């Protein structure tokens, strides 16, 4: 049953992506991207990734849509007609996709518990977590404690992005 819901949601994602490619009114494309983010959050819920689903819904469907609409307000909202035919990129894309699909044939199936990925460090964190940190949410414990340096770097990246946008877009007026 889980697999059925999973497959239906993923098919809907693929359909929306075709919409994002073909539609030329950028306002509609931004709204489609917001719907895509919500669907992606639902897929992540089905894949048991609850923290990630909340973050994707808040960030992808919330902030990204607001920023894209802000940028659209400052630029144009209609994409121009394509000038060159897109046969070569289409061939490159389809060829890459075919090779990748051939490569996934040897990967383990969906949802198995004895793959090398699920019996390595992740399982180790699940076993050690309660004794060492006492935090029930393993994702928060790993994010803030076991892999705290990565989170420090990520916070620095957000800081850098904020400074970068300020440098590019801030208007310095008399009262600043």
């Amino acid at each position, binding site marked *: 049953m889980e697999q059925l819901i999973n497959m239906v949601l993923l098919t809907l994602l693929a359909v929306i992506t075709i919409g994002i490619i073909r539609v030329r009114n950028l306002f509609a494309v931004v709204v489609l991207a917001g719907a895509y983010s919500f669907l992606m959050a639902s897929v992540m819920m089905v894949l048991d990734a609850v923290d990630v689903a*909340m*973050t994707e819904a*808040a*960030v992808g469907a919330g902030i990204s849509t607001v920023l894209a609409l802000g940028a659209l307000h400052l630029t144009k909202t209609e994409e121009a007609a394509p000038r060159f035919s897109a046969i070569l990129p289409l061939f490159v894309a389809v060829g890459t996709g075919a090779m990748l699909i051939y490569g996934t044939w040897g990967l383990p199936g969906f949802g198995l518990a004895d793959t090398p990925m699920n019996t390595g460090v992740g399982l180790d964190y699940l076993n050690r977590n309660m004794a*060492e940190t006492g935090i029930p949410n393993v*994702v928060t*414990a790993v994010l803030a404690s076991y892999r705290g340096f990565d989170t420090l770097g990520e*916070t620095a990246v957000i*800081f850098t992005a904020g400074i970068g*946008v300020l440098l590019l877009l801030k208007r310095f007026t008399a009262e600043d």
Partner: protein
Amino acid sequence: MRLDTILRVCTKLFIPFIFIFALYVQFHGDFGPGGGFQAGIIVAAGVVLYAIIYGLNAAQRAVPKRLVEFLIPLGVLIFAGVGVWGLLIGDNYLEYNNLSHGNQPHGQERGVFWVEIGVLVTVSSTMITIFYAFAGRGRQ
């Protein structure tokens, strides 16, 4: 009756609950999904909603630009400061084991608490600043 009124009244009712929900997500990040990033984005979304309905000037009177620009590096400093706190006690950088008089789970929870506060401050103020920058660029 202008339709504006419905939007303004509903927004006024919603915004306190949005901020309380952000605080709930922040502090319950230990026991369920949540944490600093999600809470920071929800705070920013509350301020953006206020700016959309009431206008950018009203939002910048409520949450001034200089305040949020000051808060962006403060979050990173809080995070790095927790690491230095570990150094001052005598442990490694960003080690939380002894932050609570030797009790390891309590020390870990204290370290994670302060680290998530740092993340909340930086993420919320950065998103609000970016929104102000985009919205303020259009007016000449």
